[in-house]
């Protein structure tokens, strides 16, 4: 009948949902059949599930059989009736007397089955007890058998619920990682141990703004490393580096590899950041590639602007020193002119005083060199070329600055005390920028001491307290730094001066940072403040 068949179809689908048929034995069910066999003192106890064409045993005690064809199974009767079925002696029962399970092994005589009915009322199978000798069940035993069948059903429900939860979780995890992977920026690929591309993200086929396509082009199935192999064979050192890096991750030598490299194609030069991350036990790697051309260009632009700003403030600073610089140049020039004109007179004498003229010429040479040194000291600060880093002697840098600032110190009625060791470890840096820092600190020190009645004193000290760095201090005996100004001292646009942009110290800090050094300030115990900066020394 159709209606029956429909109910049977639904029952079969339901059974399929439980996903229990053809699964290995599980302790929950073993425990129940063992218990049933012992409780009823029977030879065989099992949990049987009726599929379309067979009876499959989830758990069985006392028999090797795991399944039987459905048409010879006793249980299909119970399943069909959804009722408890008790056959005290099968040989005496017309329904089963001819059953091969009765006539042959296991030669069943006694059979009792309690249906496994789930909450929708469908019967999925039975809990069965069998014996080779006829017997009956008391009312209590019947009740116990039915209770045990209910326990089996509970175990099946619990099992189903757990399975559903796990599936849900798995599905969630998979979809989460999947969408993260898909939406990763740049071009991301999962590659196996040989470099074959297993999966790619959505960005794989996108082009960058400039129309630049990120290499490598091929998609899933192609070898990720191939384009790098080709470029390496063409002699690209960068491709070789990338290749070696990815291979070290694939072979498990390192866990990750990160590099930035440039690559030229028809569209122009591009910069890329490549990261390869080991996938661990799975073997293979996640390789991502991001176009950082714009970022690098922005960084380069920022560096250029910083250098520009430093140059502008340096020139401004020197502008404030024009009088002092003029003075430093005019002194030797005055000496040269006076000497030269004196020489003309000595030569015009009769007889000419050649001894004087010789002495004059010696002095002129010295004075000319002195003027030249002032110019040389300034040139590094005035140059607008790309900052050149070179090996520098800080003693020399300091001396050059003092030559420029000397007259300014005298104008401020101050004196400058220099405490330099005979030799200092060399540093790597840009002469003009470091001179700017010193000049800035000395000018600040002079400003800090203005308006004092006592004669100001600036102490410039340099020392190498450790083999790693050289330290330079500029100490004044001025008004010191207000404690609440200390934290913002190096912030841009922070100034306490009437005419000042507040760019001096921030630029000093920026310069020192690009030199791998640092700058700090503190108030002296007695009076005034000390600015101290360090630079890494070349060992």
């Amino acid at each position, binding site marked *: 009948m159709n209606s029956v068949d429909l109910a049977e179809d639904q029952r079969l689908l339901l059974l399929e949902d439980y996903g229990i048929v053809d699964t290995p034995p599980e302790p929950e069910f073993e425990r129940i059949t063992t218990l049933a066999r012992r409780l009823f003192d029977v030879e065989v106890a099992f949990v049987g599930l009726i599929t379309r064409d067979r009876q499959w045993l989830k758990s069985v005690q006392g028999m090797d059989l795991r399944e039987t064809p459905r048409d010879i199974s006793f249980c299909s009767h119970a399943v069909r009736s959804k009722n408890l079925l008790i056959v005290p002696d099968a040989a005496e029962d017309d329904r089963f007397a001819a059953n091969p399970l009765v006539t042959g092994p296991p030669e069943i005589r006694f059979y009792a089955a309690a249906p496994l009915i789930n909450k929708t009322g469908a019967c999925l199978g039975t809990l069965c007890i069998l014996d080779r000798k006829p017997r009956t069940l008391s009312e209590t035993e019947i009740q116990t058998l039915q209770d045990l069948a209910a326990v089996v059903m509970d175990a099946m429900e619990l099992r189903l619920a757990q399975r559903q939860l796990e599936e849900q979780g798995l599905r969630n995890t998979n979809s989460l990682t999947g969408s993260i992977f898909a939406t990763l920026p740049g071009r991301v690929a999962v590659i196996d141990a040989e470099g074959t591309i297993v999966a790619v993200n959505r960005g794989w086929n996108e082009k960058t703004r400039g129309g630049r396509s990120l290499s490598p082009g091929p998609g899933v199935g192609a070898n990720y490393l191939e384009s790098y192999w080709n470029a390496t064979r063409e002699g690209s050192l960068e491709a070789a580096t990338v290749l070696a890096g990815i291979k070290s991750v694939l072979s498990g030598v390192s866990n990750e590899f990160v590099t930035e490299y440039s690559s030229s194609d028809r569209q122009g030069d591009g910069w890329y950041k490549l990261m390869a991350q080991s996938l661990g036990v799975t073997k293979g790697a996640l390789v991502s590639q991001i176009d950082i051309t714009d970022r690098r260009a922005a960084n380069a632009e920022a560096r250029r602007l910083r250098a520009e700003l430093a140059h502008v403030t340096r020139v401004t600073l020197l502008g404030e020193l024009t*009088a*002092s610089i*003029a*003075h*430093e140049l*005019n*002194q*030797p*020039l*005055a*000496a*040269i*002119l*006076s*000497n030269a*004109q*004196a*020489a003309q*007179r*000595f030569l015009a*004498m009769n007889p000419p005083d050649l001894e*004087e003229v010789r*002495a*004059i010429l010696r*002095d002129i040479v*010295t*004075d000319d060199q*002195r003027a030249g040194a002032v110019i040389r000291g300034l040139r590094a600060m005035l140059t607008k070329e790309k900052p050149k880093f070179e090996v520098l002697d800080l003693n020399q840098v300091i001396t050059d600055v003092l030559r420029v600032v000397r*007259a300014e110190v*005298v*104008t401020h009625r101050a*004196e400058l005390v220099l405490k330099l060791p005979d030799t200092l470890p060399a540093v790597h840096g840009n002469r003009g920028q470091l001179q700017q820092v010193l000049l800035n600190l000395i000018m600040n020190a002079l400003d800090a001491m203005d308006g004092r009645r006592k004669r100001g004193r600036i102490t410039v000290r340099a020392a190498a307290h450790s083999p790693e760095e050289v330290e330079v201090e500029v100490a004044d005996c001025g008004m010191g730094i207000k404690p609440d100004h200390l934290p913002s001292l190096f912030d841009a646009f922070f100034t306490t001066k009437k005419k000042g942009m507040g760019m001096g110290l921030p630029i000093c800090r920026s310069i020192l940072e690009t030199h791998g050094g640092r700058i700090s300030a503190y108030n002296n115990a007695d009076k005034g403040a000390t600015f101290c900066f360090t630079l890494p020394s070349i060992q």
Partner: protein
Amino acid sequence: MTPPLNPMTPPLDQTMPPPDPDPLILVVDDDDSVRRGVARLLRSAGYRTEMFDSAGAFLRRARPDEPTCLILDVQLPDLTGMELQERMARSSSFLPIVFITGHGDIPMSVRAMKAGAVDFLSKPFNDSDLLEAIERALRKSRKYRASIVCRHETFRRLASLTPREREVLDRVVQGMLNKQIADELGTVEKTIKVHRRRVMDKMGVSSVAELVRMIERAAYALSE
């Protein structure tokens, strides 16, 4: 005509001071090169020079007695040139100054000139400018020396007057007539005439106008 009681005192103009000793140029500059250069230039022009590297070193030197010019750097480590100028003015020691400066600063030069500087030269300067300024300074110095000699002579002559003659002189210089002076001093006009004659002789002047000028010059020299 009453014969003079004293041999005639010569007029002041004719009492020539002793011939000037060689002029002396003092140079104060803290820059060795500049000092050496200027010293050579001055030597080549035939001047005697003395060099000082600070205001302090200069101030420790005794005031020169000969015609002197001071060449002063504006920017000295201990005192500025201006401060040194002010200090000398206060101690009323007169020394004509030629300022030299490494960075010409107009307000500063105006201030220095107002305070009596002879010149204000920016380094580097031409020898002719410096030597010309020095000559002007030395003329000033010689004139001052001469005025000092006149003043000393005037005071010497004033000191030779009797108290009575001094009383008469004071009133003559104020422009009083003999009769008025006689009335005031309680004597007769004739006696005053005799005193007046003696005063004119002792002071070496032949007119009241000359006497007044002589006294004024002495007073002016004092104030300079």
